C-alpha cells in the first residue's frame, strides 16, 4: 500500500486530516488481477467464508462442512471470498453548469476581481468536485488501489484531457491532479453519454463515483446508471448543490445567464420562484427515486462545505457496511 503520496493544492491539509486513515471500500466484489484488500467476485481460497453450496460430484471433499452434515444429514461445501484490488473510476461533470457559484460570490468576484475559487466561499461546484475527486483518488491510491478520471464535457478547442485510465502508481495522482486543475468546465451537460462510455470502456468491475449536480434530464441518466449497474460496477453519486439554487431567493428582476451557453432569461422572481422550486423538487424527488431503485448511493454536498465532509461521510458509510471502523 502506498504510504506517501505527493500532496498538491487540491487537497487541503484539514481535509486530509479528516479523512485520516479511512479506507475506500467497495460495496460489490471487485474483479481485479492483483491481490488486494477488496473482495473478488470469484470464489477462491481466501480465509473468508462466503456461503454454503450443496455438494455436487467433483467438489473438493476437503471443503465439505461436516458440522452441517451432522445437523442435516446433507452434504454442503463452503465457499470462500477471493480478495483483489479496487479500481476507482471518477467521473466528473465538467459541463458549464458546474461553474456555478453563489450569487454573493459572483458579486464579490465582480467587484474585487478575485480569482474564482481562491476563497472557499467563492468556489464553484467544479472546484468542490475537483477537491472531492482528488481526495477520493488520494485515498484509493494511498491504499494501493487504482484510480482513474473521466471528465464529462464536450470536447473543446482547449485540448484538455478528458480521460485518465486507472492506474495504481502513486505518481498517477500527480497526473490526476494536473488534469483536474487544467480542465475548465464548459458546454452543455453530457453526463449520460459519458457514463455510457465508462460502462462500455471499463472492462472489469470497478467503483464508479460520479460527481455532478445531476441537473440534466433524468431518463437518459437513469439509463446510463443502469448500464453501469448492469456491468456490475459499484456506483456512487456525489450531488453538488448550492443553497441559492435550492432557495431561489431573489427579490428583484434578475437576468439569469445560462452557464451552459443558453440564452439568458430575465425573470421576475416573485412570479417564477414558486414554479422553479416546484420543478426542482420534482427533479430531486425523481432523482432520489431513481437512485434508490437502482440501489445507488447518493451523497449530497453543499457548496461551501469542506470537501472532506462528503468524502468522510461516504467512506464511513462504506466502512460501516463492511463492519470495520
Amino acid at each position, binding site marked *: 500500500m502506498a504510504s506517501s503520496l505527493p500532496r498538491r493544492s487540491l487537497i487541503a491539509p484539514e481535509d486530509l486530516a479528516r479523512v485520516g486513515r479511512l479506507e475506500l471500500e467497495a460495496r460489490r466484489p471487485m474483479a481485479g488481477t492483483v491481490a488486494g484488500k477488496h473482495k473478488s467476485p470469484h470464489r477462491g481460497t481466501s480465509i473468508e467464508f462466503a456461503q454454503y453450496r450443496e455438494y455436487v460430484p467433483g467438489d473438493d471433499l476437503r471443503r465439505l462442512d461436516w458440522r452441517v452434515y451432522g445437523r442435516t444429514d446433507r452434504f454442503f461445501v463452503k465457499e470462500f471470498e477471493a480478495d483483489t484490488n479496487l479500481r476507482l473510476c471518477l467521473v466528473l461533470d465538467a459541463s*458549464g*453548469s*458546474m*461553474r*456555478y*457559484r453563489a*450569487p454573493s460570490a*459572483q458579486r464579490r468576484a465582480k467587484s474585487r476581481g478575485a480569482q474564482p475559487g481562491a476563497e472557499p466561499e467563492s468556489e464553484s*461546484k467544479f472546484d468542490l468536485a475537483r477537491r472531492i475527486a482528488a481526495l477520493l483518488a488520494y485515498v484509493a491510491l494511498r491504499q494501493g488501489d487504482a484510480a482513474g478520471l473521466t471528465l464529462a464535457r464536450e470536447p473543446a478547442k482547449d485540448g484538455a484531457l478528458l480521460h485518465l485510465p486507472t492506474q495504481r502508481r502513486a505518481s498517477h495522482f500527480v497526473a490526476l491532479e494536473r488534469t483536474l486543475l487544467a480542465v475548465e468546465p464548459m458546454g452543455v451537460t453530457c453526463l449520460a453519454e459519458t457514463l455510457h462510455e465508462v460502462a462500455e470502456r471499463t472492462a472489469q468491475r470497478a467503483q464508479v463515483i460520479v460527481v455532478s*449536480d445531476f*441537473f*440534466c*434530464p433524468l431518463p437518459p441518466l437513469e439509463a446510463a446508471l443502469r448500464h453501469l449497474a448492469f456491468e456490475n460496477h459499484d456506483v456512487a453519486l456525489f450531488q453538488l448543490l*448550492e443553497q441559492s*439554487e435550492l432557495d431561489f431567493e*431573489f427579490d*428583484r*428582476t*434578475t*437576468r*439569469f*445567464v*445560462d*452557464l*451552459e451557453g*443558453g440564452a*439568458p*432569461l*430575465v*425573470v*421576475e422572481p*416573485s*412570479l*417564477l*420562484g*414558486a*414554479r*422553479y422550486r*416546484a*420543478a*426542482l423538487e420534482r*427533479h430531486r424527488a425523481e432523482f432520489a427515486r431513481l437512485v434508490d431503485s437502482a440501489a445507488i448511493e447518493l451523497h449530497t454536498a453543499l457548496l461551501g462545505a469542506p470537501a472532506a465532509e462528503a468524502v468522510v461521510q461516504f467512506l464511513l458509510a462504506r466502512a460501516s457496511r463492511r463492519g470495520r471502523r
Partner: protein
Amino acid sequence: MSFLQPFVLFALPALLVPIVIHLVHLRRQRVVEWGAMMFLLEGARMSRGMQRLRQWLLLALRTLALFGLVLGVARPIAGGWFGGLGGARADEVVVILDRSPSMGALVPGTGRTRLEVALERLTETLRAAAPRRVTVLDGVGRIPLPLAGEGGLVDLATAHVTSATTDVPLLVGIAAEHLARSASGPAEIWIASDGEASDWRADDDRWGGLAAQLARAPAGVRLRVLSSAEPAREDFAVRVLRAERRTDGPRPLLELDIEVRSLAPFTIADRASDALAARRVPVTVHLGGVRSQIEVEVSAAGGVGVAMGQRFELGPHSRESSTTAIAGSTSTSDSGTVAERPAIALAGAVSLAPDENPANDRAFFVVAGEEVRETVLVAEDPLTREVLRLAAEAPSASGRTYSVRVVEPEALRALGAAALEVERAALVLWQAPLPVGDLAEALEGHVRGGGAVVFWPATGTDGSLDTSSSAGDSGLPATDGPRFFGASFGPLVAPRVEAADGAAGGAAGGAAGSAADSSAAEGGTRPRIDADTDGATLTSWRRKGDLLRDGADGTPLPLGGLTLREVASIDGDVTGLATLGDGTRVLARAPTEAGGVYFVGTLPRPRSSDLAQQGVALVALVQRALELGEASVAARRSTEAGRFEPERHGGTAEAWQTLELPGLEPNGPESRGTESPGTERPGTERPGTERPGTARLGAERFHHAGVVSDGERHVALGRSAGEDQRAPLDPEAIRALLPGVDVHVVRAAGEARGLLQEVWRLFLVLLVLALLAEAALCVGESRREVRR
C-alpha cells in the same frame, strides 16, 4: 375637454419618467450566472406570458397614475364629447342676473362688487363650458335676450346693480318657459345671486309650480346657483322714513325721520365693550344744492338707529314747480274763488360715507311744496255737500293745508273718471249712487293706493244722477245700483224704533253726561226713544280704533246723543263700526288690503241726522278718514324702485325722467354700481323696435334710486325695506325650493367654475385605481412568497 389650470399640462412629459425608469430598470437588472437553467426554463415556460403581461401592466398602470395625477391637478371640466361621463354639456344656458342692491356689496380683496365678480366668473365659465346658446335675463327687462359679442357678460348693458329687489321665482319661471319653447337639448339655468331672502322669496307659492315645470322638461334642466354672500365687515344702509314740510311760524321747514341700519354684524369687541355701545354714523342731507350733516346713533344691540324729526330750514333752496287747474274741478278758498293748485316737489337725498356696499348708502325723498290734504267731494245733496266740505276743510294740524275739490255730477257725466283726479286726493267723500265702470275703477285704484273713500247714501234720483240710461258713460246708476267692495246701501228710511222703558246702563259704546246719553237697554237691542228728536240713537260703536275711536285722552266721541232720523242699511260683507239698537249698521267698513272704504248709513243733513249740528263726531270721522288716506299721498311721493308704474301716477313712461338734484352727482362715488341708466353698451340683441334704446332705458330708469318727474309730479324711488335685511338662504334652503330638480349651489365667490361639471374626480379615481392595481400586482406575489 377644457382645463381650469391648463398650465399644469406642461407636466405631461413627466409621463416619460416611469417609462424611462422602466427601461433603465431593465438595463440595470441583477445578472446572475445560473446553472439550474432547466428548472428556470420549466417555470418560465409557464409564466413567460404572464410575466411579460405583468411588466407591461405595471408600466401602463404607473404611467396611467401619473397621467391621472397631472390631468386631475389641471382640473378638467366637462364639455363636448366628454359630456355624460363626468358631466354633460348644456345645449343652452340661461343666465339670470340678480341686480338687487345687495349685489352691489364689494367683495373683500377685489375692490369689485359681487355682481361684477360674478359676471367675470360666469364669463370665464361660459368660455370653458361653451354652450351652444347663452341667454341673459334680469329683473329689469324680464325678457330673455341672447348674449352676443365677445365681451361676454361683463359688457352687458345690464351688468350693473339696481336699487330694485329681484323677483327670482318670476325670473326662473320666465327662464323655464323660454327653455320649454326653445331648448332642444340639455339646458341649464345659472343664477348669479347672493341668495338674499328678499330676492328669493322662499315662501312664495310659485316655487312649487316651478319645480314641477322644470322637472317636466324632457331634455332636463339643471339649476346652477353662484351664490356669493360673504358678509361685509362694514355696511350701513340709510333710509328716509318720513319727509314732511312743516312751518314754524313764518319759516318753512323740512322735517325728516332718517333710519340708519347696520347690515354687518357688530364685532364681539363692540358688543363686549358695552351692551349699549353705539356707533355714530354721519349722514349727509342734500337739499337744494346745500349739504348738511347729522349723526345717527346706531346701537350695537339692534344695529338700527333712527334720527326722528330732523329739521332743516327751507328757504331759497326750496324747489317748487307750478301746476295747472284741471277743468271741472275746483279748489275753494275762503274767498270762494278758484285758486291755482299749490306748489309741490321738494326733492332731496340723504347719503352715507362710502362703505362696502355703495348701493344702499343713499336714499331720496320728495316732499310737497306745501302739505295739502286734498279731499274730493262728490255730493248730490247740496246740504250734505256743504257740511262735508266744511268738515273736510277743518284744519286739525298746524302746518298743513286742507283743500276740498268738489266735483259736480255734471262733470262726472261729461268726463267720467278723469274728472275725479283722485291721484292727488287723500280722501273721497261720495254721496251719490255707488260708482260703476271707470269711476269704480278709479276709486278702487285710489283705495289700492292707500286712499280712503267714505260713502253716504244717495238721496234719490234727481234726474241728473239717475243715469240708468247712460250708465255706460258716467257710471252713475240708479239707487239700487251695484255694490262697491261688496257692500251697498239700502233705501234711506226712518229707523224702526220702539218704546223704551227708560232702561239705563252703559251702552256697549255709550257714555253718560249729556241729556241725550247713549244707553242701551240691558239685552242691548232696544233703542231709546227721545221724544224731542223722534229718531233713533246709536247704541254701540267701536271706541278702540278706526274712525270713531276715543280721543287721545280717552274721551269718547259724543255719539250717544246723535239722533238718526233717516237710516240706510248697509248690506254686504262689512264690519260694523256703529249700530242702532236693532242691529242696523250705521257705520261700516269694507274689507280692503289698503286704504279704507267706509259706508255711513245716514246723511249729515238735518232731516236725516244731527251730525251737522253736533259737528264733533262728523269732523272727527272725516278728519280721521283723511289721515288714513294720507298714506296714499305719501306713497305716491315715493315708491320702490322697480315698482314704479308711470300710468298709475299719470302719464307715459317717456314723460317721467330722472331728476338731477343740484350738488348730488347721479353717479357719484356713493353710487358705484348704480350707473346712469342712459348709457348704451353692446352685448345684447334687442327685439326689433323703432327706438331700440328708449324702452330699455325707461325700464332701467325706474329701477334705480333717484327722483323721477314728469314736470309736475315727483316721485322718489328707493330700495325696498327687505333689501336692508341680511338673510341669505343657505344652499340647502335653495335646493329645497325646487325638489326634484338638479340644483347645484356654489357658495364661495371664488369657485364660479364649480358651475361646470368638473371631472377631476374621475381622474382622481383613475389615479387611485391605477395605484391600487399596481400595488396589488407588486404586493400580491410578495405575500404569496412570504406565505410559502
